């Protein structure tokens, strides 16, 4: 490779890394406990152990559960209702307005078969929620999310440029060489290269899917505004539907019938940004590992209780849903989560060593570093530059 090309790649690696490193360290550190979100919630009681339903027991009518939730928060309106995949519980999110954002929502979790209100802390309080906000939006909503998404893209660029300069640097060295006997800088440079190149595929996927995830709410909003609007075009001129709405219990039962083989995961109320102004969105999903990620809304008119449409999600929202597990690492059991956490720790070392290499760069210019790369990994003094 030409010296000038190499220098460009070196500088791309240096600057993309420097600009994102501190935020990436934050993302790696906050991401670590988030990998075990479910397990930690079990330990802290945020996800209570619930008694299994009696044989032959029927689930409580959902309208009753919603009324019960609203009784806990007088003046609120219902926003979402959903089922736990692993426990016989139903949660109801409520808020002062139909478009109440998650930080201001109230949540009531109930036993699906007895209706008992379970003593569960609010999802939007506590340490884990604090960590989640740090990881996803830095407490400033969408701008924070998009900002972190841009950092994730820089991270991906740093990985690619690091890969480009890895080859020339390592061409005289065996894979995995860590020269511990010489300078501290050389030892950490070799470690940075080894750990970085081994975790490259994983880090690239987690970084890029993280960036894709930051687009979730704009994509959701665009879908609701454009494609979903087609299905509800006939409702355009109608006034906002009056409460009380049609039975949600019946809406869910009809949605089940309209989407055979799928199970409802959650229901959105009108005005929440998930199903327009006139419909319940009963989001159903399949049972296979892939199908369980691909939600599909069944739209039920809240005025008449009739099923209006079951629109297919567009490809970009499907891609988004499928990219989420690849970012979270929550799709292959506890062993995968543990591996995910260890790879995350390795990434922290890569970021930290990269930062160290920059801080310990001394007075060597970029040209010295480029010569070092081109020599095949031999340390070079400034005087050796031709």
């Amino acid at each position, binding site marked *: 490779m030409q010296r000038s090309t190499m220098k460009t790649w070196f500088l791309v690696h240096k600057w993309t890394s420097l600009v994102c490193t501190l935020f990436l360290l934050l993302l790696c550190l906050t991401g670590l406990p988030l990998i075990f979100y479910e397990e930690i919630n079990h330990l802290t009681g945020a996800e209570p152990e619930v008694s299994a339903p009696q044989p032959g027991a029927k689930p409580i009518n959902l309208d009753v559960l919603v009324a019960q939730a609203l009784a806990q928060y007088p003046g609120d309106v219902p926003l979402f209702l959903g089922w736990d995949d692993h426990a016989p519980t139903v949660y109801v999110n409520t808020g002062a307005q139909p478009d109440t954002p998650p930080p201001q929502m109230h949540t009531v979790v109930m036993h699906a078969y007895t209706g008992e209100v379970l003593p569960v802390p609010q999802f939007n309080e506590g340490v884990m929620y604090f960590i989640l906000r740090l990881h996803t939006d830095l407490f400033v909503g969408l701008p924070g999310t998009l900002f972190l998404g841009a950092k994730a893209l820089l991270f991906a660029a740093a990985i690619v440029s690091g890969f480009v300069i890895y080859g020339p640097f390592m061409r005289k060295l065996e894979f995995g060489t860590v020269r511990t006997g010489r300078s501290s800088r050389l030892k950490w440079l070799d470690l940075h290269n080894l750990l970085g190149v081994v975790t*490259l*595929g*994983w880090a690239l996927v987690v970084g890029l899917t993280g960036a894709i995830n930051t687009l979730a709410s704009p994509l959701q909003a665009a879908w609701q505004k454009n494609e979903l609007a087609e299905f509800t075009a006939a409702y355009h001129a109608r006034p906002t539907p009056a409460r009380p709405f049609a039975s949600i219990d019946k809406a869910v039962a009809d949605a089940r019938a309209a989407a055979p083989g799928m199970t409802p995961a959650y229901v959105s109320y009108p005005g929440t940004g998930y199903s327009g102004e006139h419909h319940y969105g009963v989001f159903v999903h399949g049972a296979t*590992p892939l199908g369980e990620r691909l939600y599909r809304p069944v739209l039920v008119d809240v005025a008449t209780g009739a099923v209006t449409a079951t629109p297919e999600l567009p490809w970009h929202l499907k891609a988004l849903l499928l990219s989420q597990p690849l970012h979270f690492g929550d799709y*292959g059991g506890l062993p995968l989560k543990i591996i995910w956490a260890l790879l995350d720790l390795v990434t922290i070392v890569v970021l930290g060593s990269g930062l160290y290499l920059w801080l310990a760069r001394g007075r060597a210019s970029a040209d010295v570093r480029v010569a070092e790369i081109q020599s095949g990994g031999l340390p070079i003094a400034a005087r050796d530059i031709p």
Partner: protein
Amino acid sequence: MSRRTNWTGRAYVVPVILAVASLVGLISALIGDGIFNVISWLLLGGLLGVIAWALATRRT
């Protein structure tokens, strides 16, 4: 590897194999449970094994 060459691409052989293994491991658990999860654990866990192996044997 006894034969040393200065071909730049040789440095990429192992990393590319590891990257492909990572991708197969990442996708495997997405496709199914059971054996697909095990494949994923072995391939992604293998990355940690490679690091341990290098640190144990490739220090100079």
